[in-house]
């Protein structure tokens, strides 16, 4: 119980203390961030040693209590969140004086970690609602840290997020109407394929897809992620949108009756198609650097959605592996690219992509980090993006989805186009944009770190796949 519990309560109580004594906010935050990583690592190891663990909070009987359950996937996501949180904390610490990061960042990002960790552990439909709401509100509060220019995107994000939560809640209420339970393992396999459940699952899916910014429900994302401070955008893109995706996956694979799987797979596939194509095109056309990265998130989520669609359609282990590998690879790559892009914009003093002219000379490290992370977004070997795409490719060949192979190819080229749109510009030596001040090195190295990690991910494909319990 203790490692899992501490992973949630440590950042939570630390956040409370930070609010109480703002003077110690930074040191508390860093301490917790540092503690969380080994703790999560230890927890993962425990899960690997002893197998899946679960707890009924309060010690009540299954139907009554809220269930926490940790399989290796949850443990992996816990570790990922802790790691990225630590990274972003380091980055925030490095730039806080320069960027005038409001003091509220520290407790808020700790709360973000706490709510994410709570979400990965929970297996209760209503508790997920509260977690989602919490996550959404922390995310919006974090977006508003950029000040007045972020107000409109933040409010928009909040309204969408609220609507999504309500959709989800309505779905849960309808499920409860039929089965009188909220516990996922108890409900698993119980659902019949009737109209009521179809409606409930549709609503749940709608809400979660809105929150996970699946195309065409992504419209809130680019503005919000682009408006937030770089450290926040990194967290939002890397982790926050994955929370609802995780629930979506569990709801569909464990809860939904098999009869619904095929139609749902069409729905997800359609969303994936739109995300991959239109997300990529939007990223290619937007004039702003962080919008580009944000649209790339929309596009990349398309891969995960596609994998989910095929999990439901063919139930091959390749697709499950692809889904989670995409999530992992995207989390790392997106953290790197947002931090790098934020650093570039801050130092070069412009939001425009065109301001990145000559950045390979003026800020080689940040540019390199962006390019390396971009390599994973494209899916170049041996990056994590490649590994995930490889799994997806194998699955698609195996299930003879030639059309989707084509889509994948086009999406890959689009990703290459928007990544290299920036990189090529960075090599422009004609009139490099002069930095407003001497570039700081530490934040750039911090941006590079996850990029390098994701770049080497395929070399660790075996342990990762073992963790995901999938064989290719």
């Amino acid at each position, binding site marked *: 119980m203790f490692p899992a519990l501490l992973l949630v309560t440590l950042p939570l109580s630390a956040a409370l203390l930070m*609010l*109480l004594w703002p003077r110690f906010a930074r040191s508390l935050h860093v301490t917790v961030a540092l503690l969380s990583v080994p703790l999560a690592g230890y927890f993962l190891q425990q899960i690997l040693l002893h197998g899946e663990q679960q707890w009924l909070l309060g010690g009540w009987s299954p139907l009554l209590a809220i269930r926490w359950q940790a399989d290796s996937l949850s443990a992996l996501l816990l570790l990922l969140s802790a790691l990225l949180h630590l990274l972003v904390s380091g980055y925030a610490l490095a730039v806080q004086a320069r960027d005038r990061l409001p003091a509220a960042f520290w407790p808020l990002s700790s709360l973000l970690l706490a*709510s994410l960790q709570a979400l990965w552990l929970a297996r209760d439909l209503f508790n997920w609602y509260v977690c989602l709401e*919490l996550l959404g*509100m922390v995310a919006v*509060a974090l977006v508003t840290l950029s000040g007045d220019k972020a107000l409109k995107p933040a409010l928009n994000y909040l309204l969408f997020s609220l609507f999504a939560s309500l959709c989800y809640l309505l779905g849960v209420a*309808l499920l409860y*109407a*039929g089965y*009188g339970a909220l516990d996922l393992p108890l409900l698993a396999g119980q659902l019949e394929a009737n109209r009521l459940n179809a409606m409930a699952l549709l609503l749940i899916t709608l809400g979660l897809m809105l929150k996970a910014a699946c195309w065409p429900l992504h419209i809130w994302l680019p503005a919000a992620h682009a408006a937030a401070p770089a450290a926040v955008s990194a967290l939002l893109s890397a982790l926050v949108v994955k929370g609802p995706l995780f629930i979506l996956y569990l709801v569909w694979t464990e809860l939904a009756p098999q009869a619904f799987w095929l139609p749902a797979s069409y729905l997800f596939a359609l969303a994936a198609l739109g995300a991959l194509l239109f997300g990529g095109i939007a990223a290619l056309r937007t004039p702003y650097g962080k919008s580009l990265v944000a649209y790339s998130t929309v596009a990349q989520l398309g891969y995960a959605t596609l994998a989910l669609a095929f999990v439901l359609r063919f139930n091959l282990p390749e697709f499950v592996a692809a889904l989670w590998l995409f999530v992992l690879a995207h989390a790392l790559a997106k953290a790197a690219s947002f931090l790098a892009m934020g650093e570039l914009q801050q130092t070069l003093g412009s939001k425009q992509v065109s301001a990145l002219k000559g950045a390979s000379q003026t800020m080689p490290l940040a540019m390199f980090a962006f390019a390396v992370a971009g390599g994973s977004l494209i899916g170049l070997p041996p990056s994590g993006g490649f590994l995930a795409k490889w799994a997806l490719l194998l699955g698609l060949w195996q299930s003879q989805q030639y059309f989707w192979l084509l889509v994948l190819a086009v999406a890959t080229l689009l990703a290459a186009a928007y990544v290299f749109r920036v990189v090529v510009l960075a090599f422009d030596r004609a009139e490099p944009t002069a930095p407003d001040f001497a570039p700081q090195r530490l934040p750039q190295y911090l941006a590079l770190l996850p990029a390098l990690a994701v770049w080497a991910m395929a070399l660790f494909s075996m342990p990762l796949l073992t963790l995901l319990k999938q064989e290719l």
Partner: protein
Amino acid sequence: MALLLFDLVLCALLLLLAGAAMLSRSLTQAVTLFIAFGVMMALAWARLKAPDLALAEAAIGAGLTGALCFTALVRYAKQPAYPQPALWRPLTFIGLVTALLLASLSQIPLQPSSAIPALVQQHLPQSGVSHPVTAVLLNFRAWDTLLELLVLLLALLGARQAPGDLPRYRGWSLSISWSRLLSPLLLLVSGYLLWRGAAAPGGAFQAGALLASGLVILRLNQQLSWLSWRHFWVRMLVLGGLLAFVLAGAVSLLLQDLGAVWLSWPQSIAGAVILIVESFATLAIAVTLTLLVVGEPKPEVADA
């Protein structure tokens, strides 16, 4: 028959009020109608044998939300009027969706198969309180409640990020003396609600909301000017509910053997733990809601 008539009228009223609030040309009207809608809703919930919720809705849904909306409304006075958008397209779509939803409702079983109510009754004696809703909130599903308190806190944190220069209301002698008269009464009632929550409808949220309305009235009448986030003990009050909750969880873990899980109160002290947590939560809710409604005297972006 009379009851059905009552139901019919109530439902029609609810729908009318909600529809009018959504479609009325003036925002002021919309907000007023919405508050009336909230009151009617409280009535409906009382009718549906949910007195806890009726209390909460009356205080939170109608009262505080209404106050919040009116504050926002003031700012719209300066905005140009918005053109009224067309109705038929959203109406068609929403109508279709609603029809689908309605169609799926027919499959809701009338006799629920859920074993939960029975389980609640069965475990109620061990929960430390005798009112089932309180037992669920603070014992069976205490984790939800903890996170919910966190959501409330976040609303305050988020709102503090966007401080608006609130138009101030200035009290005058009658309202000041009335506030002085009313607030002890509210304090009394909310304390009673909190205490009563262990055995009957009531509890931390209703009490907190009621207390908050008292605080808001006092605050609007130039009392309680100390109520600001800058003060350590105001923060302590706001965070107290969560801190008490977490501490209680930790202490309970320490009191029990190693196999104990999070948020399981030892049966012998469960009642006391719940009362303590609820008391702090009530104060926290009250102060948080107050700060949310009236804002702070001098907005500060961040405390270093």
